[in-house]
């Protein structure tokens, strides 16, 4: 089963972190990623630019609307994702916990993928 780990964080708080602190966090995350690559769970991962760079496209009554900004203003923003292959939710939660533990206030939403795109 594939699971998407959606990582949320308060961007403002993240930007206030000292560069050395961010470096330490990145090293810890790297270690987790190397582990899940080796164990065969890793499928993909990525970090997003801050929400200030976001543009939303929306269909409304037949018209396509392009606007500046994310689709919703929230305290925490989607900052990155991991796509992992796991045997069950517990395995996915185990990986999510290791990633969340690397930085204070870390929040990860774990969502299973549908088995097929259409199904």
């Amino acid at each position, binding site marked *: *089963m594939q699971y998407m780990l959606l990582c949320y964080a308060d961007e403002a708080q993240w930007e206030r972190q000292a560069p050395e602190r961010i470096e330490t966090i990145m090293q810890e995350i790297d270690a987790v990623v190397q582990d899940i690559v080796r164990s065969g769970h890793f499928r993909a991962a990525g970090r997003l630019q801050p929400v200030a760079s976001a543009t939303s496209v929306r269909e409304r009554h037949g018209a396509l609307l392009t606007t500046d900004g994310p689709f919703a203003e929230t305290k925490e923003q989607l900052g990155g994702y991991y796509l992992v292959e796991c045997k069950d939710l517990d395995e996915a939660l185990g990986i999510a916990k290791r990633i969340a533990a690397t930085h204070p206030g870390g929040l990860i939403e774990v969502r299973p993928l549908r088995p097929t795109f259409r199904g």
Partner: protein
Amino acid sequence: MNLSELHKREYGRILATLIRVVRDFDLAEDALQEAFEAALAQWPSEGPPQNPVAWLITTARHKAIDHLRRQVMAETKHDEIALLIGHDEETTVPLDALRLIFTCCHPALASDAQVALTLRTICGLTTEEIARAFLVPTATLAQRLVRAKNKIRTAGIPYEVPGNSALAERLDAVLRVVYLVFNEGFTATFGADLIRADLCAEAIRLGRLICELLPVEHEPKGLLALMLLHDARRATRTDANGAIVLLEDQDRSGWNRAAIAEGAALVPQALRGRPLSEYAVQAAIAALHAEAPTARDTDWRQIAALYGILVGIVPSPIVELNRAVAVAMADGLEQGLALLDNIHLPTYYLLPAARADLLRRLGRHAEAATAYRQALALVTNDAERQFLERRLAEVSSP
């Protein structure tokens, strides 16, 4: 053993084994339901089979095979049918019941869904019974169960006993569900609603099952002891009119001695667990109350010490409040009163009620009356309100 007793004792275990075999919650539930219906129709005339559990498992398995055969997309179900026919076990496996408990109490499910699912699958209560017990519409509860089962399937919640590293955390969640069921039944007995009192029995049954399945764990023993010791006093907690009777005024001859003995015997084992669990300490306190021949013989000094330990495990102003009362009884009313002054619980009626009681015992009736009035402004339960009004009248009369 009659069929309804068998249902109570074995439903969850049989269902757990069926779920592992058929790998589908709903199919297993339907098949078992039909097996029990078949038993109800056949056993009275033909006599019960020699091994009723084996009969139920085999019948349910065949019902499940029938279900799968009837399904339209029969060709895709061949593997599953073959799998089912291949399984010929006739006994329940303890590990299955344990797996099912951990699945039902998985932290990925909402707390109310955990409770509903546990009562439905492990205890075999009907949706209607659970809805009535928790005072929610049957449709709401049915919806809750459907959502929970959907999440188990779509999110891939495993049907497994968690490994060592996760066991403690996951066991906490399981025990929390059991204790929630018990408390729901226990506080509800004020309403004299028998269905809700049944929840206490179900919680104790669950506690026993978990102790049996996880014999080396100490925490379940603490919880079982705590529930037994509280439940032993249930009949004497209210009088014939439903009014509250305080522990010190309860008729101790009406306490269930067998339950007290069983609970008290578990306490020393529970206290050996590390880290020390709050259930074990609370059970130790309940045992001291339950084993005191009279209210005057209560070992308040030891109880106060145990509350001191409990504060360390669960730092909460409510535990502090209980500790203050125990200190008042052990070391002097004024000392208890001084401890109460440092507790901040602005909306909890028991804080002014406790202060009122200590002031009453000290003979400071005017101050006690003020405190009783403060408590009355916060209380919500009718039986508790009547009790406070009675006490207020006592300290107000010249």
